[in-house]
């Protein structure tokens, strides 16, 4: 999408009047175009100012206390754990997740690529393996080693837009006190589906789309597996993973469905 087309849509974008499928190309353009981003910022600030036009209504008197309590509770959860541990733990979590996927990846990738699809037995093994992966990852989260006590982890299974197009999984960890993290594993993407590279891996949420990473030819291993990860300031509400090829076609997608809260550490 070029600048002219994007700018035609910025007014609707600022007003929230673009449906997601039309907002997505705009969101993909803005991070890379300073001029359009500047105009988008001005229009968003202008639209936000309209919110003050409403005559103010009175909420219940208790709302102020509930707002304060909500923030205090989040602050308290953050303060129960030193931030430095959180960051170290986050990196450990990433490493552990990546290692776990790497171990599982070979069999997983082979099945996803269709080489074992003919075998029911292999399909069963794959189901067990996938379940095992999820359970092991949940176990991993439910230790005190990883992240802030208020961290929340979201896991998605990526499904292909076309049959036999591979699969994958994604993890986001959302923290109130330290940076958030997204890890996306693409797996079993057959060679014929890897023609239009690089793939762009994005998370979609309340403020549009965020780029997790791009996967080029060298990013894939022999089983069509690749992993991208990135830290973000805030991933609250970013619950859709979309992988597109270089032509903008959706290759894989998934919703963050499984949710886990990192267990509280021992006091």
């Amino acid at each position, binding site marked *: 999408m070029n600048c002219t087309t994007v700018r*035609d849509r*910025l*007014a*609707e974008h*600022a*007003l*929230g*009047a*673009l*449906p*997601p499928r039309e907002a997505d190309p705009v969101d993909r353009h803005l991070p890379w175009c300073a001029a359009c981003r500047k105009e988008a*910022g*001005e*229009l*968003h*600030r*202008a*639209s*936000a*100012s*309209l*919110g*003050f*036009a*409403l*005559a*103010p*209504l*009175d*909420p*219940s008197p208790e*709302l*102020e206390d*509930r*707002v*304060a309590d*909500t*923030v*205090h509770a*989040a*602050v*308290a959860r953050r*303060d129960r754990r030193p931030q430095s541990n959180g960051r170290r733990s986050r990196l450990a979590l990433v490493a552990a997740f990546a290692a776990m996927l790497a171990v599982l990846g070979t069999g997983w990738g082979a099945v996803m690529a269709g080489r074992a699809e003919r075998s029911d037995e292999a399909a069963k093994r794959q189901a067990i393996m996938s379940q095992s992966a999820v359970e092991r990852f949940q176990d991993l989260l439910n230790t005190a080693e990883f992240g802030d006590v208020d961290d929340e982890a979201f896991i998605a299974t990526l499904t292909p837009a076309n049959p036999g197009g591979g699969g994958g999984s994604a993890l986001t960890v959302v923290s*109130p006190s330290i940076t958030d993290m997204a890890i996306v594993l693409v797996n079993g993407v057959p060679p014929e589906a890897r023609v239009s590279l690089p793939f762009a891996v994005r998370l979609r949420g*309340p*403020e549009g789309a965020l780029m997790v990473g791009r996967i080029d030819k060298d990013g894939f291993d022999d089983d069509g597996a690749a992993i991208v990860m990135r830290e973000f*300031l*805030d991933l*609250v*509400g970013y619950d859709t993973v979309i992988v597109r090829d270089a032509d903008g076609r959706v290759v894989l997608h998934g919703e963050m469905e499984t949710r886990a809260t990192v267990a509280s550490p021992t006091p």
Partner: protein
Amino acid sequence: MEGLLAGSDDAIRALYARYGRPIYSLGYRLLGTRESAEELTQDVFLTAWRKAARFDPTRGRLSTWLMTIAHNLAVDRLRRETGVSRPTLVLVDEVPDAPGLDEEAVLIERDAALRALSSLTEAERRLVVRAYFRGMTAREIAETDGIPLGTVKTRLRSAMIKVRKANEGKDEL
């Protein structure tokens, strides 16, 4: 913002005292119930705390930053909850006023917003209200009002150019 980031009770309550009602009012207008509007207000302040380190005063005012969070969260919720019925449309100038209850800064914001809306033609204003205060997409507006989609888009663009112009030069907080 430093106070909010640190979780200072005074800072949270000061921010709520200034912006709580406008945020609640927008939530009520978009979501249609007091319960939803209050939940939204809590979510907005929690999100603001989470994102406080990200707020850049050189790129915009605190008021519009908070209102952007509120509008995004509300529209997102509106579109996620399939089947949710939108509240009855109430045009801005039909909403009963309650003067004298706001802090000065919010009154100034409100005055500026009303002036921006008054700079629009009636047709533009109607579409902006449907888009911003009801969370309708351009296509939904076109279908509801029986107006060609291209006309809706053109009017929204011309309207936002005027609103942006009306916002130029506003003092930074």
